[in-house]
């Protein structure tokens, strides 16, 4: 009985549990990463669209009410 054997046996015995945890981590990472990337992309698109509509405006005067 060696430590390596114990490790391999344990990994194999609990493989379904480890696979489920691994899959969960991969899926949740993908969802979170995707949401962050899409969020950044949408924000960038809106800023670009606003810039285009404003054109070369440098100064804006507000009525103050």
């Amino acid at each position, binding site marked *: *009985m*060696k*430590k390596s*054997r*114990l490790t391999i*046996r*344990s990994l*194999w*015995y*609990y493989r379904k549990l480890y696979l489920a945890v691994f899959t969960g981590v991969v899926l949740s990472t993908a969802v979170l990463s995707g949401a962050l990337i899409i969020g950044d992309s949408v924000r960038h698109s809106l800023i670009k669209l606003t810039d285009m509509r404003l054109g070369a405006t440098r100064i804006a005067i507000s009525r103050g009410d």
Partner: protein
Amino acid sequence: MPAELQHISKYYEQPESKARNLILDDISMSVPEAGSVAIVGPSGSGKSTLLHILGTLDVPTVGKVILDNRDVMAMNEAGLANFRNRFIGFIFQLHYLLPQLTLIENVLLPVLPQKEKSARKVAMEHAGNLNERVGLKDHIHHRPAQLSVGERQRAAVVRALVNKPRLVLADEPTGSLDTENAVKLGQLLYEMNREQNTALVIVTHSMELAGRMDTIYRLSSGKLQMIK
């Protein structure tokens, strides 16, 4: 003398009121070489706590634990773990065999920390003899799930003895067994104590099992009283 407790007290302080919850009150006892001792008492009286202190799994608030003429409280953590592995065998109420290992692999787990090949070889031979002795020779490649409850507990006994410990501590070893298996295991523990020359300390509710031991103590309200 393989084991001696000197003026052991154990208490917990209530965090708010600072009141002391006394579990063990100035307990002294000794376990003779190859002797057998039973500790009986009502649930919650501190029997398991006392056994855990004797097995160095817990520390007393006051007092000394002397094992093999050494003060174990003075040892560092690694030294104590090594000493515990070689000197003490544990049997618990539940077998705690690892489901991913076969019976023989489970039995040889206490040998895992030993690095010398010769020691491992001796332990393997000893494990083979013990398995034959307790009637598990034909089941050594079975997983715990393929064994009966009595067989699992016998495997736990073999695991406790595989390193040839001088002290075996059993915490309610028959607690999870039916009457027939409990009687058989009690007989086995008694015989192994005699054959292997190990000191045996059993915590039990069973007076039938306790009656087989040389000495019986009763633990009640934190005090230990010899009744046999």
